[in-house]
């Protein structure tokens, strides 16, 4: 050996720094090292000035990705996270790209995995879109004191007045919690989602990992997924929920399947997914009964038949280049709700290259889909749900103005539970106990507190949306659906404005 292995060494860009003056190590405190589930902090013996050997915290410089758990848990406020990337002098070859190659070359030559949503520099269109407000020619409305309605009903509407209306989901806030399966998150998180949505009057989505028997009391606020692996899908699973969603794809990994290794398929996962303990759980890339649009229709109606047409069927797709015609086809295939997930959408685990480079922004996708459905005269028959990259309540409202009936949020749910966005959801080591089932970590989620936090999130965003609507003189949210006239673009080119169907500011 000539030490060549060091050529491939990568040093994490982040590490904790300890203020030893403040640190309570002298009294034996070691909270930080216990809290760090990634093993970045160890207690290291040091001889103090008084000659005593005591254990102090030390960064191992191996694993930190700035989840901030240690910072938040330190009772003395003695920790902060340093950002120290390995700079290259090369203007084109940034250390990110170099590090990825070092990791691949020096390790197993594998596909790099990440969690969470795309981090790339692509334009965030929401930031380039501004709302209108009332001045003089009509009155703004005070949402705190006059009625302001944000309720939405999702589901198929008849094309002709007089025909029967399909089953509807009633959303008192037009925000649902997007699919996050058991496995990706733990049962405590799902229970908090279920309770919060029940209390607030909206829906959460089980994802494809099955539906716990003892959470089925929340079925009226639950959307269950049928994905390519059909895990846990049975007649009673379908009938336990308010709606069924066929998952074709998700924004973080369009066209990609999943693989939950057998060693992770423990008792609880085995039960919800209805597969033997220790068996690998493979989600194929496509549904192998859907190779074309007519096959999707076949599956939609298979579900509708089984459900006796009592619940709406949703189809979730990733926002890809041809999203508009695809959505049109899905609508005509019989979907009652179509969820479109933009490329910023999060995930438990995805190949880095897919996350960063596949799909399109939700702002453009939802606009194109809404426009296409209107051009074909079928917009009102189907509901559109936007997701993937929504970070605040004004994003929700902008998505609605661009043509969505409601939104799914995923990452904001995790952040509301404390997620520090370290993007290692796939590791099973989540320091906040959100994306892990590990004993000792999962318990970091207190269901009561988590429920309250999610209710707070929905309430706060709902109130903020009412403020925005009030300033626009809108008292019913359906009057904003596809209302591009209340938006203006700032710093967008003509093509972008055309696709978003909005005018530039000043016009």
């Amino acid at each position, binding site marked *: 050996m000539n030490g060549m292995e060091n050529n491939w060494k990568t040093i994490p860009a982040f590490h904790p720094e300890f203020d030893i003056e403040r640190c309570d190590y002298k009294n034996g405190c070691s909270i930080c090292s216990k809290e760090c589930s990634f093993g970045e902090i160890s207690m290291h013996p040091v001889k103090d000035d008084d000659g005593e050997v005591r254990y102090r915290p030390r960064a191992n410089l191996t694993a930190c990705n700035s989840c901030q758990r240690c910072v938040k848990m330190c009772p003395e406020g003695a920790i902060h996270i340093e950002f120290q990337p390995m700079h290259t002098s090369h203007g084109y070859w940034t250390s990110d790209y170099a590090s990825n190659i070092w990791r691949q070359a020096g390790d197993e030559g594998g596909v790099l995995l990440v969690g969470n949503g795309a981090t790339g520099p692509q334009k965030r269109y929401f930031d380039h879109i501004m709302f209108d407000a009332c001045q003089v020619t009509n009155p703004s409305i*005070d949402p705190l*004191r*006059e*009625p302001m309605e944000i309720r939405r009903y999702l589901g198929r509407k008849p094309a002709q007045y007089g025909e029967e209306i399909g089953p509807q989901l009633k959303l008192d806030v037009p925000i649902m919690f997007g699919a996050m399966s058991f496995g990706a998150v733990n049962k405590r998180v799902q229970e908090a989602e279920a309770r919060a949505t029940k209390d607030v009057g909206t829906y959460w989505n089980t994802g494809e990992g099955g539906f716990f028997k003892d959470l089925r009391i929340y079925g009226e606020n639950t959307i269950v997924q049928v994905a390519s692996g059909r895990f846990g899908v049975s007649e009673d699973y379908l009938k336990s929920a308010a709606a069924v969603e066929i998952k074709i794809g998700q924004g973080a990994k369009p066209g990609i399947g999943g693989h939950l290794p057998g060693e992770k398929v423990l008792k609880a996962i085995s039960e919800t997914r209805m597969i033997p303990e220790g068996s690998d759980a493979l989600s194929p890339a496509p549904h192998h009964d859907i190779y074309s649009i007519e096959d999707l229709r076949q599956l939609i109606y298979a579900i509708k038949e089984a459900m006796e047409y009592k619940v709406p069927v949703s189809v979730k797709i990733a926002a890809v280049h041809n999203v508009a015609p695809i959505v049109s086809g899905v609508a005509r295939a019989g979907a009652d709700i179509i969820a479109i997930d933009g490329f910023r959408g999060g995930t438990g685990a995805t190949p880095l290259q897919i996350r960063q480079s596949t799909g399109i922004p939700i702002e453009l996708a939802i606009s194109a889909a809404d426009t296409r459905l209107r051009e074909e005269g079928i917009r009102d028959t189907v509901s559109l749900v936007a997701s993937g990259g929504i970070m605040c309540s004004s994003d929700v409202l902008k998505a609605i103005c661009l043509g969505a009936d409601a939104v799914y949020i995923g990452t904001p749910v995790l952040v509301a539970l404390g997620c520090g966005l370290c993007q290692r959801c796939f590791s099973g080591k989540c320091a906040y106990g959100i994306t892990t089932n590990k004993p000792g970590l999962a318990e970091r989620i207190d269901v009561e507190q988590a429920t309250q936090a999610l209710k707070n999130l929905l309430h706060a965003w709902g109130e903020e949306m009412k403020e925005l609507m009030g300033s626009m003189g809108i008292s019913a949210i359906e009057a904003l659906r596809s209302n591009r006239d209340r938006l203006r673009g700032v710093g967008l080119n003509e093509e972008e404005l055309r696709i978003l169907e909005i005018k530039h500011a000043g016009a």
Partner: protein
Amino acid sequence: MLTIDTKGLYYKSLNRHIRGYLAKGENRILLKNILGQRYIGGGLNSDALLEVYGTPGQDLGAFMNGSRVTVFGNAQDGVGNTMNAGKIVIHGKAGEIPGHSMRGGKVFIKGDVEYRAGIHMKEYLDQVPWLIIGGTTKDYCGEYMAGGKLVVLNLNNVAGSPVGQDIGTGIHGGIIYVRGHIEPHQLGIGASFSDIDDADSAFLS
């Protein structure tokens, strides 16, 4: 008493005439054939009395600061808008937002009024505005109310509630007295029921 036949007079010249006569010492003017002229009594601060026959226009008595206006007929929208002192008596009904932002003075309306009666009435030091409605009101009566007394008498005993939805929504001062029934769902945000106490009885009698 001076009488002006206002037929066909535009409000600008009518009100200039009124101010001119008042400046010359006239303190009682009868306006006949009023039809839609705006701002009658607007900004007046003498103790003069204007008697109005007909249908005065928007913002009757706006910014009035001490004069008196009596209307023999119906008034339109914005009666007593941001009034500081004085008295307005309407022998008919009035339109939208009567008493908007009144800080003082008294407005008596014999008949019904429309939406948002007494919106944002407020008190200041010893100024306590009164808005007394003989008939009924519609929604958002007393919205944002910050002070003063708003009374709904329903003298014609109209069946059902004499006020609409969202009564007193955002109220943070003042009192609304309603003779009649109010369902809990009619109450606006921040408004609550309370029993009549001695001070209330004294005021009402």
